[in-house]
């Protein structure tokens, strides 16, 4: 007797599918049959017509799931019961992202939790990072990557990344699935060498060309979270054209090296990562701040990492976005100062003078560069920030 497959949960915004091979029927349990059954049945029929599974009895228990959640759960259940069935390939129109996009915040969302995933695009993070790695237990990896694919295919993100598992565990399967949702980039956890990055880049090239996409358009964000990774930050950052950001993961790093999470303990890896990013002309993004109720601590840490040279920070709760964005946004005075410096430089250039001075004070090159960077950031926030 074939086993019943159960995918999904009873939590709000989710649905649970019970699938029994050999049996038959499509039953829908929902809070209001009149309101919801027709829509849910419609989604289910569409999925069934795409997958054409062998006969099976299906029960959908609805807890307020959106269409893409139902589709993801149902595909998950069917493919878990019938592993040979080819996957659904949604049509996704998403333009590739740019390497130097504004990325003050990257908001993590657990890939198998509709309660958090629904509306994740609306919280104002500069980029959203759908996680298949640490937040997803091994038994749920398959369901999660299918759900994430359907989410990607439905939602119009400002910028969206997927954190896959390491390539030597579930990473390749993750990639083959979520690439169909055309994420802007892939986050590679526990990156320790240029080879790790190149292996991912190679896999991406293969998939992109299979799909008929322009090669190299999917970006890579290696996450450095081991001692070895920190030591190799330079080669990781420079490993491939696709690498647009390198991120720091402090929790795993401190565990790996046996440190406690203090500002002092993190100063070296952070500085190393910023330097590696600068050498490769890419962005460095800091680790998350775990205590979501401690806004003061978050602001303090964000100010610190901004001083170090980071371009952004990980976020585990939407509440953290506002404070981080304010720290990373130049103040009116900073923008005004930067404008004056750049104007003075332009005037000096027109006058053929080498030295720039404002009010008798000499302005050297690094200060000019910083002023230009401030203006670029302000402009980017104006254009891309929300």
């Amino acid at each position, binding site marked *: 007797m074939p086993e019943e497959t159960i995918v999904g949960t009873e939590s709000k*915004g989710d649905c649970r599918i019970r699938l029994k091979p050999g049996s038959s029927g499509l039953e829908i349990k929902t809070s209001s049959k009149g309101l*919801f059954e027709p829509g849910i049945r419609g989604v289910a029929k569409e999925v069934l017509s795409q997958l054409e599974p062998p006969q099976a009895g299906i029960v959908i228990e609805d807890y307020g799931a*959106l*269409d893409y959640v139902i589709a993801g759960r149902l595909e998950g259940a069917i493919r878990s019961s019938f592993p040979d069935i080819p996957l659904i390939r949604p049509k996704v129109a998403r333009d590739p992202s740019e390497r130097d996009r504004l990325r003050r915040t990257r908001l993590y969302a657990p890939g198998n939790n509709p309660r958090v995933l629904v*509306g994740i695009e609306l919280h104002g993070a500069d980029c959203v990072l759908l996680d298949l790695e640490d937040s997803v237990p091994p038994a749920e990896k398959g369901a999660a990557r299918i759900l994430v694919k359907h989410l990607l295919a439905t939602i119009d993100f400002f910028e969206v990344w997927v954190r896959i598992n390491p390539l030597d565990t579930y990473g390749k399967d993750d990639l083959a699935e979520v690439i169909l949702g055309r994420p802007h980039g892939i986050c590679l956890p526990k990156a320790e060498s240029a080879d790790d990055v190149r292996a991912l880049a190679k896999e991406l090239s293969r998939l992109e060309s299979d799909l008929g996409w322009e090669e190299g358009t999917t970006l890579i964000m290696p996450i450095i979270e081991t001692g070895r990774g920190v030591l190799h930050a330079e080669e990781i950052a420079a490993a491939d054209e696709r690498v647009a950001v390198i991120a720091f993961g402090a929790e795993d790093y401190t565990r790996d090296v046996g440190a406690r999470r203090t500002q002092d303990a993190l100063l070296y890896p952070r500085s190393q990562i910023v330097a590696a990013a600068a050498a490769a002309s890419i962005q460095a993004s800091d680790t998350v701040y775990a205590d979501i109720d401690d806004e003061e601590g978050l602001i303090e840490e964000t100010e610190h990492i901004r001083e170090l040279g980071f371009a952004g920070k990980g976020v585990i709760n*939407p509440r953290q976005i506002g404070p981080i964005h304010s720290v990373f946004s130049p103040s009116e005075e900073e923008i005004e100062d930067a404008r004056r410096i750049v104007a003075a430089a332009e005037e000096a250039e027109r006058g053929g003078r080498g030295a720039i001075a404002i009010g008798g004070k000499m302005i050297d090159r690094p200060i000019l560069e910083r002023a230009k960077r401030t203006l670029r950031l302000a402009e980017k926030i104006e254009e891309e920030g*929300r």
Partner: protein
Amino acid sequence: MKNALGREIPDRIGERAPRPFSGAFETVPTGRKAPRPQKTVKPGENKVLGSIEEAIEASGLRSGMTISFHHSFRNGDYLVNMVVDACARMGIGDLRLFPTALFPVHEPLIEHIKNGVVSRIEGSMNGPVGAFVSQGGKLKQPAVLRSHGGRWRAIEAGDVHIDVAFIAAPQADPYGNATGIKGKTPCGPITFCAVDAQHAEKTVVVTNDLQPYPVYPFEIQQGWTDYVVVVDEIGDPASIASGTLKITRSPTRLKIARLAAAAVKASGYFKDGFSFQGGAGGISLAATKFVGEEMEREGIVGSFAMGGGTKLLVDILHRGLVRAILDGQAFDTDAIASLREDKNHVLMDPGHYANYDSRGCATYMLDAAFLGATEVDLDFNVNVNTHSDGQLLHGIGGHQDVAAGAKLTLITVPTLRGRLPVIVDRVTTVTTPGEVIDAIVTERGIAVNPRREDLKERFVKAGLPVRELAEIKAEADRLTRPPGRPVFGDEVIAVIEWRDGTVIDTVRRVVGWK
């Protein structure tokens, strides 16, 4: 006939010849207030009776009459069930129930409806009684739903004549003065039924805490009270005053609240003397908190805040951000304590705050208010009474009164509840007309009523995400296939009155689905 919103209103609804809604401020009242029989008591007369049964007997309550109640104990009220049970035991039936509101705790009424003890209900029905009545064929006359101000008006105007008003009083004296903010189980002010007490043929105060004369403040006065009854329990205060209401932690709801507060700030009304209605629902409570923080940051001192009183509003008062709180209800223990102790926390009845047929409403003095909705439509009409499946499940509360009065009425809603769209082409039931709604605040942006181009300009200038309501709707609709739609028959389950007594909509029996 069709009313001004294009809603079909039958020429007769049961025994009533309805006046159709013609606009938020079109009705001009005529006539005089309804009278109450004159009566006098001599010094030394006793009003205290031994039991509810004795009071029923003394009051002359008979089958076919109307009895009224207040809802200040909300889901902790015992009195409605006690009185109706007693009537049933005494063989009194065919009663018209005229509560301010019913809650899930009143589910036993369903049996009384089935066996004819209760044959009519006029009042808010939150929960099972509403669901039961929605099935159709349960009541002799359709239910009537009125706003806080609308109910007050209906009694004063004589639309509803009360035979006996039963008033649950957390503290009373033997002479019939009563309050809800003192006693063993305070439930907050009991001003909602002050009008019942003044217009009923007989007024019965039921208390679990009889104290020597005089009890004060007296929301209910000796001059209105015929009888006083002492019982062991009148309600469970834990279900109304269960400590502090919690601010939502949902990121989506917090986002809506933040946007609403930002909208208030950008509205042009946000300056010294600013006044607002603080909400108690998830989103409006958070919005109230953010508005308070913004007032503090900008150094703005408001004139008043209006309750339902909450700890949050009390804090705003104590931080000196407003000069006063005007309260008709209290939603937690802190608000009740503050009403007792702080002279700037002022008791107010619905006649003072919301009555259309009056010479002034406190809501008309409001700058800003946050209100909720079960549905909103593209004409900005709001439904708070029915669910999209046509079930009658909620009362109007002060929704109409506040929306009609406040200069800036913001409806704060998520675009989706589960897989159910909140923004629809046409609301299932109109509670409050779009003409008194200024903007809809959602997690996908703010839609400003086209009547308020001025507001739209201010919001855009402040960098707020202003969008067309249809565009917000389309974005949410992309995420769910359209829900099924109930098909309504002819039978009218309930009449929704606008606050002036005209009929803004009817709720009909669901006969199928399409």
